[in-house]
Structures are given as C-alpha cells and as structure tokens.
C-alpha cells in the first residue's frame, strides 16, 4: 500500500444499481464454491471502491464454529491483514462482525481501540479501515473488510455505497450458502444410500449363514469392524466379495 498520496479523484462510483445486482447474480451462477464466490466478491468490492491514488484492499472474514476465519481476499495484502486481526483476536472487523454494525476507522494514527492490531496494521501501511458486516439472517456470519493506505480513505458516500453493496452481496451469499448446503446434503445422502445397500446385503448374508436375526448379524459385523479397525462398510464389502466375488456393489437412485 504505497500509493497513498492522499489524492481522491472523483467519487468511488460503485452504486447499488441493477448493474451490481446482475454482476452478483452472475457470480452466484459461476462460482464453484463459497470460497471462490467470496474471492470474486472481494475483488469486485476492491475494484469498485478503488480510485487512482487510493487503492482499496478487500477481504472477507467469516465465523466458522465460532472462530473467525479469513476465507477470501482481493489480494495478498488484504489477506495478511485479515489473518493478523484474527491472530490478535480483536480489531475493527471482528467488532463489526460481532456487533453487526459498520465500523469506520478514518485514521489509524488517532485510534485508541484495538491497540496491538492497529499498530501492526499501520506498519503494513494501512491508514484507514472500513468494516461492513454482511447480514445473513442467522445462517452464518461474515464481514467485508476494506483497507486504504490513505487516512480518511473512505468518504461518507463510500461508506454508504459499501453498505448497500454489502446488503446485495449478503442476499447472494445466502443463496449460494443454501445451494451449497443442499448439494452437500444430497451428496452425503447418496453416499449413505450406497453404504447402506452394501451393509444391508452383508447383514442378510450373515443372517443366512448363521441362522440369526438382524441385530445379531449387525453385532457380528460391528465386532469384526472394531477388532480389525476397519470401517463397517468395508467389512461388509469384504463379506460380499468373499461370498460372490463381486467387487463393486452399486445402488442406483434417481437424483
């Protein structure tokens, strides 16, 4: 962040218009996973807010299992700053994340809160920070972190546009979260169906061979799995192979 000659040229035009909405929609459709989507989001935020003389670096931090994780950034500088803050466990972005309110630090040199982090960030050439939480309606928690090398690098107008951008981004993020969760659940289910088919078949074979009931057959299979430290479905597959020589049992289910 060396381009801080303090010159602002024109407004940092990234309006909330239909253009942004369309771009975000495109991102949802084209992203392969959440990380890729967030990276594109950070790049988009950075390019829309940067003006000659004031480059904005952008990162996204999400709460996962109650711990903050820097998942995506427009560039290495922003990623390093996010990581640093998570390392300290406190900073403007984490406060914004926890409280759900935008936090603007116009001049790091004059800031008295989050002392260790602020000092380190200044060493990295940061002069102002804008942190905008993404409201995901309880599905997850995320914050958009914006860093500028200029003091007062974010005008009131920038803050407003960043907030409206974050609002639109949040809707897209909720959508992609839901899509990802559904497709993960579907994949897990289809793996479970395959596994259950193999195990049920082996249990049936054990019942026939030992003239026992289903619970007893499960018990035999489980004991074999425990003593050999092999997964239940692998033991089941071995049982089937030993009887019929079939290596691969596949179950077909309509998706």
């Amino acid at each position: 962040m060396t381009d801080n000659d303090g010159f602002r040229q024109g407004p940092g035009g990234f309006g909330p218009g239909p253009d942004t909405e369309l771009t975000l929609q495109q991102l949802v459709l084209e992203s392969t996973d959440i990380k890729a989507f967030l990276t594109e989001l950070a790049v988009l935020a950075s390019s829309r807010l940067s003006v000659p003389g004031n480059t904005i670096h952008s990162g996204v931090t999400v709460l996962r299992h109650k711990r903050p994780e820097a998942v995506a950034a427009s560039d290495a500088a922003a990623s390093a700053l996010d990581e640093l803050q998570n390392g300290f466990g406190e900073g403007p972005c984490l406060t914004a994340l926890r409280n759900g309110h935008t936090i603007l630090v116009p001049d790091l040199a004059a800031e008295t809160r989050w002392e260790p982090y602020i000092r380190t960030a200044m060493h990295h050439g940061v002069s102002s920070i804008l942190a905008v939480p993404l409201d995901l309606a309880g599905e997850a928690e995320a914050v958009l972190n914006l860093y500028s090398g200029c003091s007062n690098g974010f005008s009131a107008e920038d803050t407003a546009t960043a907030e409206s951008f974050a609002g639109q981004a949040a809707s897209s993020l909720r959508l992609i979260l839901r899509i990802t969760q559904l497709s993960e659940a579907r994949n897990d289910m289809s793996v479970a169906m395959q596994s259950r088919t193999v195990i049920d078949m082996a249990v049936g074979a054990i019942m026939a061979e030992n003239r026992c009931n289903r619970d007893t057959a499960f018990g035999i299979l489980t004991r074999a799995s425990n003593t050999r430290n092999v997964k239940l479905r692998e033991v089941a597959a071995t049982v089937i192979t030993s009887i019929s020589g079939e290596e691969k049992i596949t179950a077909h289910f309509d998706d």
Partner: protein
Amino acid sequence: MNADWTGGPDQLVEADGQRRTAARRFRDASVPLIELWTYYYGLGGDVDEMSLDAYLNEALRLPAAQVGLITTAMNEFFGVDPE
C-alpha cells in the same frame, strides 16, 4: 421406536451412562445433526432424525442395536473417543 426395558435397573443405569457419553461426544464434535444422522443411516440405522436428536439430548431411550450403530457412526465420523 422405543426400547423395551426388561433388563432391570442395572442395565438401565448403564444404558443411561452410555447415552450421556454419546450426548457429550455429539456436543463436543459440533457437527450438524443431519450429517451424523445421514452417516448413521448409511450404516443401516433405523431411527429417524428426530429420534436421534431426542436420544442425543437424553430424552429418549433406543434399542441396544441402534445405540451400537450410533456409537459406530460417531467412531467413524468423529474418530474414536479417547475416553
């Protein structure tokens, strides 16, 4: 599906202890219930997601065979319990 408790008070105490351990492991793993249930179902488990939820909140007793499968599901999904 509820357990048929004809085994006497000793078995009941033992089963409840086992259930408490399962509940603790589930809490510690902080894995969504649906993921554990799907895995358990894949092992041949019979009870539905709501019953598993109740069991893991120590509000329902399950037959020993299902308890065994829940333990196996946890061992394979979370890793074997160190305790």
